[in-house]
């Protein structure tokens, strides 16, 4: 097909070229246009040279091809001849038909001129007739026209003269619309001739109009009229060129004043909320303030609707008003929740406000009130959540500081109370928030996710700040300006120490009980939703909080021990700074610092007993750590040896050597172990730290024989009561021995007291303290 189509196409193209070359007058143009590939061998081009072409053919082709070419060419020539014949024939045909047409036209035109002349004549006669009629009727028409004009004028004059009366009539029938129309119709005339011919008339009508204006204004201002009527009045007034803007301003001012009445004052808010609740229960309670408020707002929104229709151009102003009311509502709300407000009360107020907003939104949908109030509501709600948490913190801290810690056994009470405060407070908060979540108002549904997020974050922040607050209360961190006064007020160390212990235990309680409970609660009713609001994962991270409080509890416990030991340390420091140990007199009795030391320990014991649980009883038996046993024995041996021949320096050197050796072989007594939340652990740690301090103080002094003996006596006396109170006997033994060793090392002349004398002095002291106790008991 394709092979056949190609020559066909070629043939058609050649035909077209040939024809166009035939018709084109200038062969050169056709040349350019038809074929660019002009050459000698192109049969269609003008520059075709037959001889040359022939030569080329003969050279290029064999006989068969030449023959073929010949046949082909003959056919083509024949074809061209027939085509040419056809063309000539067709052209001739067309020429003949053209001649026919011309002939017909010629015959038709013939005779047309006579008809035209007749027509002209007839038109001429018609014209002359009509001229005649015109001239005969001209005068009469003039007259009629004049009469008509006069009549019109007269009618107008009549109208103007009638105007006052008519206006009065209109006033009577309150057809102000007609009156205004009449007056405006007469205006141009009155304006032109008012000062001359129609003076009276004008005055009268103006008076009437004034009355009308007045009436209209009253109508406009009166709330009893229908909105339609008022709107009409406004339109009429506008037509009368009365300055409506000032009227509008006045009206809107009135509306603004009405705003004040609509305020939900923080003082009244709670009442309102209560009534709102109660009116929900019993519909009869119509006269509740909530109802009144609702009516007022309804009136307000109606008025707004009216004004909107009356003054279509005043929308902006109304928007502003509505927005002002909304923001005012929320501002008042903020003021309101500054005080302590329950979630129910909060919701009550919130509902009222939302109703107001919905009412106004109906009237002014373009004011975007719902957006505005949604934003404001978010802010308020967020604040409410934040405030609730800060109130809780305040509650807890109040509970903690409420009691006078100097009373007996009060620490227990404080701990219980504060525990209850934490539990109860969080439970209340959950209840409140659940109410918020259950609220079905549109806006709350929208904010649900956000709310959950806030609550979670609120808890997180709450516990963080609670921890910081605990540390501040304990005096550990001395920053935070707001609580500073609070602490200074109670800065007595005694109160602090007990309080710190309570705080420590409370932290443990929060870590172990409260946070898991809150985690459960949150998982139960406050989960989800937050993922969109907080992309950084859930806001409430119980694991982190547990860590924080765990650390806090340990810190606080350590701090408690620190404050306690500090006090004892002061006693010790005084004890060692005051006397001249090198010139010490012979020991007569146990020094009184021991009493103070024991007294402090007793106090620690008392406080600890109230707050902390009893630890699993695991007294270190002396046999458990035989290492220390041998040490002490070897020490005392060396002491005795030393007494025997102290002048022998070789011996003394070996003493030190022996001490070192003993230390090498004995397991290191862990003095500074981790503190646990048990009574024993805390007391033990305190005692250990104090004894260590005692040792250090001893090391800083130089003693004479009597000084050393005094220390020996004091330590000997301490041994028994300390062992009673303390769990880790081995460590205490070790430390007490260390003190003696330190003293002997720092002594110029080591001669220990004979055991009988030691015993006697201790017995004397015991008797004395017993007597003292009896005295205090009896008194």
């Amino acid at each position: 097909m394709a092979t056949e189509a190609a020559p066909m196409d070629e043939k058609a193209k050649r035909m077209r070229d040939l024809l166009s070359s035939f018709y084109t007058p200038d062969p050169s143009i056709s040349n350019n246009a038809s074929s660019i590939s002009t050459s000698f061998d192109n049969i269609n081009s003008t520059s075709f040279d037959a001889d040359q072409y022939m030569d080329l053919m003969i050279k290029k082709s064999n006989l068969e091809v030449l023959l073929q070419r010949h046949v082909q060419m003959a056919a083509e020539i024949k074809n061209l001849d027939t085509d040419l014949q056809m063309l000539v024939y067709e052209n001739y045909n067309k020429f003949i038909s053209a001649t026919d047409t011309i002939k017909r036209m010629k015959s038709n035109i013939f005779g047309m001129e006579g008809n035209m002349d007749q027509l002209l004549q007839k038109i001429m006669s018609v014209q002359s007739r009509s001229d005649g009629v015109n001239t005969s009727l001209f005068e009469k028409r003039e007259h009629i026209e004049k009469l008509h004009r006069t009549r019109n004028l007269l009618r107008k004059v009549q109208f103007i003269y009638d105007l006052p009366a008519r206006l009065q009539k209109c006033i009577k029938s309150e057809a102000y619309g007609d009156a205004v129309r009449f007056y405006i119709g007469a205006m141009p005339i009155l304006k032109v001739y008012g000062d001359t011919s129609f003076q009276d008339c004008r005055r009268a009508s103006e008076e009437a109009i004034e009355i009308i204006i007045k009436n209209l204004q009253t109508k406009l201002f009166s709330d009893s009229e229908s909105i339609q009527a008022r709107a009409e009045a406004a339109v009429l007034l506008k037509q009368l060129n009365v300055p409506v803007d000032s009227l509008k301003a006045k009206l809107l001012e009135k509306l603004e004043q009405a705003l004040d009445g609509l305020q939900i004052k923080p003082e009244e808010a709670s009442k309102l909320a209560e009534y709102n609740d109660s009116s929900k229960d019993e519909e009869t309670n119509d006269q509740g303030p909530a109802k009144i408020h609702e009516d007022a707002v309804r009136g307000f929104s109606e008025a707004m609707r009216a004004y909107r229709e009356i003054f279509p151009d005043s929308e902006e102003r109304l928007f502003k008003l509505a927005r002002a009311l909304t923001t005012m509502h929320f501002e008042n709300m903020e003021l309101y929740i500054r005080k302590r407000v329950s979630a129910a009360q909060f919701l009550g107020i919130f509902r009222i406000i939302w109703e107001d907003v919905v009412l106004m939104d109906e009237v002014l949908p373009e004011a975007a009130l719902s957006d505005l109030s949604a934003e404001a509501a978010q802010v308020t709600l967020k604040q409410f959540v934040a405030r609730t948490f800060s109130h809780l913190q305040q509650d807890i801290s109040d509970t903690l500081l409420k009691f006078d810690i100097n009373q007996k056994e009060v620490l227990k009470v404080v701990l219980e109370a504060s525990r209850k405060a934490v539990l109860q407070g969080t439970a209340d908060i959950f209840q409140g928030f659940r109410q918020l979540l259950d609220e079905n108002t549109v806006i709350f549904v929208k904010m649900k996710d956000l709310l959950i997020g806030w609550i979670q974050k609120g808890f997180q922040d709450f516990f963080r700040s609670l921890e910081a607050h605990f540390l501040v209360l304990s005096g550990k961190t001395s920053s935070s300006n707001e609580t500073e006064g609070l602490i200074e007020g109670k800065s007595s160390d005694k109160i602090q120490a007990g309080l710190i212990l309570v705080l420590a235990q409370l932290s443990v309680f929060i870590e172990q009980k409260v946070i898991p409970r809150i985690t459960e609660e949150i998982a139960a009713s406050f989960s989800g939703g937050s993922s969109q609001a907080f992309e950084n994962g859930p806001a409430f991270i119980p694991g982190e909080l547990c860590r924080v409080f765990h650390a806090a509890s340990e810190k606080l416990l350590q701090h408690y021990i620190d404050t306690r030991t500090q006090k004892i340390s002061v006693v010790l420091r005084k004890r060692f700074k005051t006397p001249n140990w090198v010139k010490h007199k012979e020991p007569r009795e146990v020094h009184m610092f021991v009493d103070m030391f024991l007294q402090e320990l007793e106090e620690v014991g008392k406080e600890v007993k109230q707050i902390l649980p009893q630890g699993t009883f695991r007294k270190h038996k002396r046999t458990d750590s035989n290492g220390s046993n041998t040490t002490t024995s070897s020490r005392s041996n060396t002491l005795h040896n030393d007494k025997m021949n102290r002048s022998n320096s070789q011996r003394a050197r070996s003493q030190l050597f022996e001490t070192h050796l003993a230390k090498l072989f004995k397991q290191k007594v862990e003095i500074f172990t981790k503190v646990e939340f048990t009574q024993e652990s805390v007391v033990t740690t305190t005692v250990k730290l104090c004894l260590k301090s005692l040792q250090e103080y001893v090391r800083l002094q130089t003693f004479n024989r009597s000084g050393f003996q005094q220390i020996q006596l004091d330590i000997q006396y301490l041994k028994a009561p300390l062992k009673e109170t303390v769990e880790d006997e081995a460590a205490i033994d070790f430390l007490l021995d260390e003190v003696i060793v330190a003293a002997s090392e720092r002594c110029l002349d080591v001669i220990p007291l004979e055991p009988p004398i030691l015993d006697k002095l201790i017995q004397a002291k015991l008797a004395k303290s017993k007597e003292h106790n009896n005295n205090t008991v009896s008194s």
Partner: protein
Amino acid sequence: MQGGSSGIGYGLKYQARCISDVKADRDHTSFLTGTLSLKEENEVHLLRLSSGGSELICEGLFSHPNEIWDLASCPFDQRIFSTVFSTGDSYGAAIWQIPEPYGKSNSSTLECVASLDAHVGKINCVLWCPSGKSDKLISMDEQNLVLWSLDCSKKTAEVLSKESAGMRHSLSGGAWNPHDVNSVAATSESSIQFWDLRTMKKVDSIERAHIRNVDYNIKREHILVTADDESGIHVWDLRKAKVPVQELPGHTHWTWAVRCNPEYEELILSVGTDSAVNLWFASASSEKKTSESSVVASPQRVNPLLNSYTDYEDSVYGLAWSSREPWIFASLSYDGRVVIESVKPFLPRR
């Protein structure tokens, strides 16, 4: 990394409290330490870290007449040092010179350059002027501050001025400001006092009870570090000295001494009576952080404690950074054990 026994140890014969870096020795990392024995013959040991840093060699052993409570090496002459000593019922302070040629380990006697005998009460410490070349000295007893001028060639020490701090303030120690040679900080029972040596007047003070030790940061002006008995370590900025810029927890028991690294400004070492040496990192940025966000404790706050060396048998009292190799420090526990440790693994990367 608790208490790895990577340190190099050296045992003194008796108990000891003080160790000092020999700053003037530019060729070796050496330390001077003196024993504290009431009844025995006390010794001063000159220790040198071998060039490989693997061994602590005793370069000199000198007998000292009394037990040594304080020892400080002269910053410009490696052979000179000061001691504060006690005979039991009285105190004295003296400048000593190590005899030439030292280096033999057999005990030889020290040459007393000068005796700082202007005190009656308990002498706390002798401070060398930190500028390096100056021949000024300060000695401190519980009530008085004495400024000396030392002439090594004539072997005399002259009292330039003496001032009493008053009976109520019992001084316990001090530090000479390396940034201002006219300023000395002295710790007293209830405060840190700052003295101007030109007028010999107390110019300022920070109220803080029971400060045991104080040290200036050599690299950062106005920064002072103090150690308390109970409440650990405090970093102060002297321009706003109302509250400390940073608090470090210190030790389980008393924090006895604290030293700023002479080269790496953030590193602080402390020793305590809980038989431990703690290495702290007190960066300038974390100071700001703690002062700004004291309430909201940032959970990512870096633990300032870099390492705790706990391989000691007794309370650690002596502590000195090497000024030649500032990543090396020497510590001395009461049982007479000198331990040299390197803090190289904890150096801040820069």
